[in-house]
C-alpha cells in the first residue's frame, strides 16, 4: 500500500512537471499582456519598464526557470489585473468552488441512489421506466442551458430564488461558507442543481445496473433464504455492494465537476475559481491561469489517489500492490 502511494505520488510529480512546462509555454503564446497592462498613452519607455518589472523581456527558458523556482516556494507571481499573488487569489476562491461541487455531489447522491436502486429492483414497473427515461433526459440536457432555464423559471418568472452571487457567508475555521445561512442556501440551490443534474442521471443508471447485477448474486439469495426481511436485504446486503462502484465513480467525477463548475460559476456569477479562470483567460492574466491550472491538476491527482485507496478499502478483493 505504502509503495503504491509513493509510486503514485512520484507519478503525480512527473505529471505536474510536464503540465507546468506545457501550460507555461502554451500561455506564453497567447497574446501580449503588455497590450492590456500598459495604457494606450504609455510611451515605448514606459512599456519597457513594465516589461522589465514583470520579467517579460527575458528569453522564454529563463522566464520558465524563474517561474519554476518561485513556484516551488508557492509563489506564482502577481496577478496582472489584481496586483495580488496569483496563488492567493486562486486559493481564496477555492472554498466557493468546492462548496458548490460538494453540494452538487451530495444532492446527486441523495436523489440518485434511491431512484436508481428502485429502478433496478423493480425494473419492470412503469415508475422504473419513467426514472430511466428521466435519466436519459438528465444527461442529454446541456449543462449550461439547464442553468439558463432554471434562472428563467425560478429567478425571472417566479422570483423565488436569486440568479447570481453567493449570498451571506459564515466563517468556519477562517473559510467563508454559505451553506450555513438561509440566504446562502437560496443562492446555492440553482447552481448546485445545474452542476449536479447530469451526475445524478449517471448515478441513477449506475445504481440501477449494479443493483440488477447484485440482486442475482448468491449472497443475496442466501440472505433471503436465511429469512431476513426485504428491508434488511436491500438496506444492508444490496446497498452496501452497490455503494462500491458508486463511491469510485462519484470520486472520479468530482474532478469533472470542479472543471464543469467553470460554466456554472460563469452563468450564476458564483465567485469561485472557475469564474476566475474565465475572467483571467479573457484578460490574459497569465499568472492566475497558470496558478489555477496547476492547482486543479494537483487536486485531480490527489482525488484519483484517494479514490484508488478508498476503493481498495471498500472492496477487499482489490489489492493495490498487484494491480499494475
Amino acid at each position, binding site marked *: 500500500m505504502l509503495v503504491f502511494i509513493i509510486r503514485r505520488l512520484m507519478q503525480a510529480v512527473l505529471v505536474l512537471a510536464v503540465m507546468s512546462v506545457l501550460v507555461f509555454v502554451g500561455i506564453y503564446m497567447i497574446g501580449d499582456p503588455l497590450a492590456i497592462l500598459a495604457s494606450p498613452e504609455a510611451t515605448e519607455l514606459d512599456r519597457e519598464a513594465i516589461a522589465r518589472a514583470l520579467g517579460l523581456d527575458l528569453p522564454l527558458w529563463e522566464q520558465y526557470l524563474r517561474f519554476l523556482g518561485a513556484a516551488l516556494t508557492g509563489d506564482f507571481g502577481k496577478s496582472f489585473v489584481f496586483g495580488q499573488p496569483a496563488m492567493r487569489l486562486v486559493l481564496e476562491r477555492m472554498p466557493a468552488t468546492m462548496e458548490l461541487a460538494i453540494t452538487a455531489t451530495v444532492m446527486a447522491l441523495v436523489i440518485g441512489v434511491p431512484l436508481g436502486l428502485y429502478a433496478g429492483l423493480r425494473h419492470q414497473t412503469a415508475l422504473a421506466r419513467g426514472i430511466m427515461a428521466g435519466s*436519459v433526459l438528465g444527461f442529454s440536457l446541456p*449543462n449550461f442551458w439547464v442553468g439558463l*432555464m432554471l434562472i428563467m423559471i425560478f429567478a*425571472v418568472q417566479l422570483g423565488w430564488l436569486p440568479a447570481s452571487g453567493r449570498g451571506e457567508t459564515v466563517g468556519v475555521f477562517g473559510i467563508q461558507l454559505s451553506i450555513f445561512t438561509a440566504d446562502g442556501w437560496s443562492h446555492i440551490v440553482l447552481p448546485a442543481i445545474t452542476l449536479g443534474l447530469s451526475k445524478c442521471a449517471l448515478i441513477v443508471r449506475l445504481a440501477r445496473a449494479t443493483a440488477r447485477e447484485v440482486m442475482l448474486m448468491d449472497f443475496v439469495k442466501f440472505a433471503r433464504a436465511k429469512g431476513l426481511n426485504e428491508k434488511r436485504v436491500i438496506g444492508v446486503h444490496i446497498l452496501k455492494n452497490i455503494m462500491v462502484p458508486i463511491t469510485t465513480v462519484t470520486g472520479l467525477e468530482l474532478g469533472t465537476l470542479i472543471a464543469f463548475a467553470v460554466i456554472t460559476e460563469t452563468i450564476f456569477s458564483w465567485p469561485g475559481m472557475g469564474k476566475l479562470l474565465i475572467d483571467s483567460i479573457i484578460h490574459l492574466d497569465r499568472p492566475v*491561469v497558470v496558478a489555477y491550472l496547476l492547482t486543479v491538476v494537483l487536486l485531480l491527482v490527489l482525488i484519483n489517489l484517494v479514490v484508488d485507496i478508498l476503493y481498495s478499502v471498500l472492496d477487499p478483493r482489490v489489492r493495490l500492490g498487484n494491480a499494475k
Partner: protein
Amino acid sequence: MTDTALPAAAPAPTESPLRRIIAEFAESRLALLGVAMLVLFVGAALLAPLLVPQDPYDLATLDILDARLPPGEVSGTGLVFMLGSDGQGRDMLSAMLYGLRISLFVGVTAVALALAIGASAGLLAAYIGGRTESIIMRTVDIQLSFPAILVALILLALLGNGVDKVIIALVAVQWAYFARAARGAALVERNKEYVEAARCLGISRARLLLRHLLPNCLPPLIVIATVDIARSITLEATLSFLGLGVPVTEPSLGMLIANGFDYLLSGVYWISVFPGVLLTLVIIAINLVGDQLRDVLNPRLKR
C-alpha cells in the same frame, strides 16, 4: 448483400449479420424514434438554405426594428417570425437551422477525425506492443485523467476562435477514448485464429491491420462514436456559450443560446429557449440510437 464478402461464414445463416443487427435494433421503439428524429434533423440541416424563410447571414435583409419580436409576430417586411426574432432582428427559426448545420458539422467532423486518429493509435499500440504501446497508452491515461472541458477550454484559449480550431480542440480531447477502446478490442482479436491464418498467408502488415483487424474492432468503436457525436455537440455548444468556440459570424446552437442569455433576465425567453430545445432534442436522439446500438452490438449480451 454482405454475404458475398463473407464466404467463410460456413453454416450459411438464413439472414445476413447486417439484417440481424437491423432487426434487433428495430425492437426498441425509442431507438426507432431516435432514428426518425435524427433523419429529420440532418435533413433539415442539409436543406436549411431551401427551408428557411430568411437568410440569417445576409445582413441586408435584417432590420433592427424587428429585433426581439415574440413568436408569431410579423416583421416590417411581412415575414412571420414563427419562433420570434433575436437581438438583431433575425428570424430565430432560420438562425436555428443554420446553427444546427454548424453544430452537426462540427460534431460529426470532430468525431470522424478523433475516430481515425484514436483507432490508428490504439491498433498500432496493440499490434506493435512494447515501448510504442506504453508511450501511446500512458499518453491516453494522462489525457483521460483531465476533464475534457478543461483541456478544450485551455486549447481554445491558446488557439483562438474558429470552426476549425473548435474541431482541433474536440479531436484533441476525444481521440483518447477511441485509442483505449480500439486497443482493448484489438488485444482480444489479435489472438484469434483468423488473424493467425491471415498472417500465415503472408499478407502485409498494413493489410492485416486495415482489412482484418480493424473491421473486427469496429463495433465497440461505432458505439463510442455515436455517443461521442452527442458529447462533441454539447462540448462545442458549451465552449461557444463561454465565447471560446465558433466565431460570432457563424453562430452554432450554443452561440445562439449565449446571445439569448443577455435578454433572458428581461423576460425575452425565446432567443435562448428554442435553440436549447433543439440542441437537447438532437442530443437525446443521438443518445437513444447510441443506447440501442450498444445493446445490439455488445457481444456479451448476445442471445
